[in-house]
């Protein structure tokens, strides 16, 4: 089992962004309070950056447990003795995977990945700013191949960029299935 957390550098960067956004938009909101349209625009921006700050705070206390059975996300609130909110997703029930890449640069360099996994139990998403994100991506890709989950072209490209070889995983999975079925089973696929 691996315990993974969002990297402190990434969390710190998002805190800085939230504070800058709140400072800029809050100052502007104060300046334009008398003007109706601008007031609502800046109020919406202030709320947006406040939510961003709150989400960053939650990420600071988020921990992922990666096991062979699945992945579990828990968010600790109120210190060591406080409550922990957790959500699990087992690899067996995984039925949808999307791996997205976001970049603020026009040449799409220097961005980050966002992995979204769904099952009947719910939805769980992880950013590549989590330590050892490659491990989670590899496990999700393996489960997607085993469960024969359809993946978009963008998701497959993004897995390839992470050096997750879906073709090898598929070949390994088919070979394992063939071994499990045995020689008699292989001769009659209806069995």
């Amino acid at each position: 089992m691996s315990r993974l957390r969002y990297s402190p550098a990434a969390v710190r960067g998002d805190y800085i962004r939230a504070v800058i956004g709140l400072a800029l938009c809050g100052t502007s909101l104060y300046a334009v309070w008398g003007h109706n349209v601008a007031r609502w625009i800046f109020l919406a921006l202030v709320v947006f950056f406040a939510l961003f700050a709150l989400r960053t705070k939650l990420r600071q206390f988020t921990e992922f447990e990666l096991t062979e059975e699945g992945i579990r996300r828990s968010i600790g609130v109120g210190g060591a003795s406080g409550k922990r909110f957790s959500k699990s997703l087992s690899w067996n029930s995984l039925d949808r995977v999307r791996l997205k890449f976001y970049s603020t640069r026009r040449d799409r360099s220097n961005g980050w990945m966002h992995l979204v996994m769904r099952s009947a139990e719910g939805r769980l998403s992880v950013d590549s700013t989590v330590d050892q994100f490659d491990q989670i991506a590899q496990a999700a890709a393996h489960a997607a191949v085993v469960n024969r989950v359809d993946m978009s072209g963008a998701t497959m490209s993004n897995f390839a960029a992470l050096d997750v070889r879906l073709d090898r995983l598929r070949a390994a999975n088919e070979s394992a299935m063939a071994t499990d079925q045995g020689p008699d089973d292989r001769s009659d696929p209806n069995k």
Partner: protein
Amino acid sequence: MFRYIAHRLLIMIPTMLVISFLVFLIIQLPPGDYLTTLIEELRALGEKPDLARIAEMKKEFGLDQPFIVQYANWVFGMLQGDFGFSFEHELPVQDVVGDRFWLSFIVSVATILFIWIVSFPIAIYSATHQYSWGDHGLTFIGFLGLATPNFLLALVMVYFANEWFGTEIGGLMDEKYVGAGWSWGKFLSVLEHLWIPVVVIGTSGTAAMIRRLRANLLDELQKQYVVTGRAKGLPPAKLLLKYPLRMSLNPFIADIGDILPQVISGAVIVSVVLSLPTTGKMLYEALLSQDMYLAGSFLMFLAFLTVIGVLLSDLALAALDPRIRLAGQATK
């Protein structure tokens, strides 16, 4: 996506600030200001300028203040909806612009819709019927559209409308609605007159879009996954619409940011030729007469449209095709 929007918004805010500074710097760059130009003009006409009144105006509008103070006042005013004072019209900028802003907006949005609605089916037909008579004919018309300047097309349309139908096609509404408040009748009148500027301004954009979408779709249609799909017996319509068309739409979306200011600034001469009550002609005159707040407000409006357009197109692209470029590198 939440994090992405936060990143993009944080880039957008300083971008607007830098643009506002550059706009203010550029409109201040020519020597003197509107008042010194006015003094020169009066002297050239042999009249004696009222220097006391001019000094009073200079103080009133803060033109005697340092550059940075003038800039700060301008930006702070804009945030509060005060875009400054037009010296030439002797009215606040928002009163001078009036309906022109909304009319420009209507013409621009209608032009963009025209460009997309016309170019989309033509480009698909041209790409799927490459080197057919239809493709050659549409390509020829497309090149004609690219090569014909908008103002020339406007002049040609004005001439033939007058010659063949005996009608004037200038303006954007019937005479009786000019200067009147907005009403259902005025709106219908604007719609009736709208098609001519939309066709004139949109022709070159349509031609360019047809060429680009055709080329992109042809590239996609020749890729291996399409050949495989065809070999496996996928229906042609599904084979076209499912992936190749979606992939070739990216330039459409990426263009949202550029197309709006291009349409507005490209319509300046057309608005002069067709006597359109839009912002184009006013911007031109404001730049000539150094009416700095009026010109600055227009330029900020164009910059704002560009930045918002780029933001929307980036968000749409990120939602539609969140794919890494293999030459790039994903980092933490």
